[in-house]
């Protein structure tokens, strides 16, 4: 019951006219960011972060999380109407969403997607409400070894659950760690990898990397494809809302499955994108109407959207309780917390009660406000895509440059942004995953210092990571995750050998 009391306290914080206004502004910006190619949740929040430095932290995080909700909602609009996923996590939404639009059921697809997003998000927020305080209390007992174990598990999960080549994941992740180690070493105060360059003293700023990798990289990809928008018009009548909502209760099982998949993928840093594909895949396999998937089935829109939002929201749980973000956007929010002088992690729940519960309450409110806004304003948001790309592209580069500059008031960062942009384009093209790089860049210093502290305590004995059941369990799970692709490859080989033997 403590949680409920605290939550009501949180509502008292979040429910002010000023905060509701911030939510409306944030969600509008977020949807615009989600609709535009080249701007996504992570770099949108990164660019706007400097504007919040003068605000009180609670208001600032309400604004920024609202942008995040907006971006999650916005991705669905372009997927359904234009068959262009505005965000990576809405790729799976195009499979059934766009066929529905072509069949003249765009309004139903949109309502279905928004409602599904809302359900997924609220499910994950409920989970955060009741689970976060428990996890935080538990994590208060963590020492450096336990923290390193959790961080190890985080990164190992990328290898174990990633799609595509595990070696590319490792390379991308280690590049993040290597970039994070540039600059002043926090433990001994020596300069590392600076090669006498003063600009490198402070190391690489991950916000600059996010803006370059996602923003500029994305613009380069869009330019190469030569974007053409040809979409269905979005007319959303209110009777479509009722019509769609009548169909949804029959899909409760799909909702539940996608919620669970999404929450799991969000807490372990699988992220929203794989969650949406998994949600779609599971629904396709298990649903009665699975055969119709891909031809414009409402359930095929609901499944990935629910999972993506549940994952996107659940990613904030480890960020708040352990200081380990579950997605690139959560990582940017974590950077924001640090700049406002709040140390994310278990102590946050003890020392900054108002802030934490205000934030959790704002997640409920933000999603309600978001649902109402997107249901009423779809035609307006869809109209954004009628703005010619030759205006949008340079304007986005300009905004990215502002974002990169304001991180540290340095032109050097703007140059770095361009370099990261080229890198982001190449990584995108060659399917090197970007989230591991970003998370390694954010957590690199922390992971390294908890590793070194743990080693110091144990005088160099690696056995410290297996010194108690908790730490040992997490480390073992991490190792299993890290070698999961290898195990699977081995199993596939063994079974094919069997098959060959039997055939012979």
């Amino acid at each position: 019951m403590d949680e409920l009391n605290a939550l009501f306290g949180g509502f008292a914080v979040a429910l002010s006219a000023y905060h509701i206004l911030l939510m409306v502004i944030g969600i509008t910006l977020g949807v615009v960011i989600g609709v535009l190619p080249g701007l996504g949740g992570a770099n949108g929040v990164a660019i706007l972060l400097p504007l919040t430095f003068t605000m009180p932290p609670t208001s600032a995080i309400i604004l920024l999380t609202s942008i995040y909700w907006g971006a999650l909602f916005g991705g669905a609009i372009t997927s359904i109407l234009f068959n262009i996923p505005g965000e990576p996590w809405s790729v799976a939404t195009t499979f059934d969403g766009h066929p529905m639009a072509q069949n003249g059921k765009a309004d139903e697809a949109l309502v279905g997607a928004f409602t599904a997003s809302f359900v997924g998000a609220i499910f994950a927020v409920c989970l955060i409400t009741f689970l976060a305080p428990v996890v935080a209390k538990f994590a208060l007992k963590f020492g450096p070894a336990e923290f390193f174990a959790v961080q190890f598990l985080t990164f190992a999960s990328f290898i174990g659950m990633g799609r595509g080549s595990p070696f590319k994941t490792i390379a991308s992740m280690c590049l993040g760690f290597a970039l994070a180690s540039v600059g002043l070493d926090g433990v001994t105060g020596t300069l590392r990898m600076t090669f006498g360059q003063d600009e490198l003293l402070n190391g690489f700023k991950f916000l600059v990397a996010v803006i370059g990798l996602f923003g500029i990289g994305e613009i380069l990809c869009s330019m190469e494809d030569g974007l053409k928008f040809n979409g269905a018009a979005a007319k959303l009548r209110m009777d479509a809302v009722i019509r769609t909502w009548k169909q949804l209760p029959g899909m409760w099982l799909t909702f539940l499955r996608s919620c669970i998949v999404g929450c799991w993928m969000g807490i372990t840093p699988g992220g929203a994108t794989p969650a949406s594909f998994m949600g779609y895949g599971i629904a396709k396999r298990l649903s009665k109407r699975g055969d119709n998937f891909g031809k414009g089935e409402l359930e095929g829109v609901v499944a990935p959207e629910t999972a993506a939002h549940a994952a996107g929201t659940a990613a904030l749980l480890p960020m708040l309780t352990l200081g380990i973000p579950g997605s690139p956007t959560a990582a940017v929010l974590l950077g924001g917390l640090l700049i406002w002088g709040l140390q994310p992690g278990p102590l946050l729940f003890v020392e900054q009660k108002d802030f934490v519960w205000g934030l959790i309450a704002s997640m409920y409110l933000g999603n309600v406000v978001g649902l109402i806004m997107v249901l009423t304003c779809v035609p307006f948001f869809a109209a954004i895509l009628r703005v010619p790309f030759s205006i949008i592209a340079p304007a986005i580069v300009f905004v990215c440059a502002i974002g990169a500059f304001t991180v540290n008031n340095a032109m050097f960062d703007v140059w770095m942004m361009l370099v990261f942009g080229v890198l982001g384009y190449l990584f995108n093209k060659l399917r090197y995953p970007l989230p591991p790089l970003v998370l390694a860049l954010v957590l690199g210093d922390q992971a390294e210092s908890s590793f070194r502290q743990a080693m110091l305590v144990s005088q160099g004995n690696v056995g410290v990571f297996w010194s108690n059941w908790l730490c040992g369990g997490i480390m073992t799970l991490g190792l299993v995750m890290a070698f999961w692709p290898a195990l699977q490859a081995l199993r596939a080989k063994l079974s094919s050998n069997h098959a060959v033997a039997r055939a012979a």
Partner: protein
Amino acid sequence: MSSNEETEERPLVSYRTLDIAVAIFFLVVAAIVITDSLRLGIAWKPNEGPQPGLFPFYIVVAMGLASLVNLAQALPHTPDGEKIATTIPGIKRMAAIFVPAVVFVLATNYIGIYVSAAIYIGAFMVFFGKFPVWKAAAVSLGIAIVNFMMFEVWFLVPLPKGPLETALGY
């Protein structure tokens, strides 16, 4: 005419070439970091713990090994690897936004970010978007002024400014 079309569709790089180039880039980064880690020391110091080079060293060794595997996987000629990654028109379109972006950042040092951005957006609209000059001028000035108001006046975030802003008293 037909030769013209052929040049437009001409492929520039295959995935294989690009994959190899990126894997080599990773190896170069690994070599740089390893060199500096060794300078910093990767040993264990009694009572002090690991030397500052230890963690980066093992991280980039892992990166180097993974990149070697990536390189090995990219080297054989496969149908997937022969697919075209970028065509000449594709790279031209990318250059159309990227090269001016470099000029824009360079110009920011001298004339400030707002003037530089207005020129950048306007020029891109005229040359790439084929907009009439007056429209391009209106849109680009509008974007620059809105951003100026937002950052310099409302949120008080100082951005690089040039002679024009100084003349206006900022």
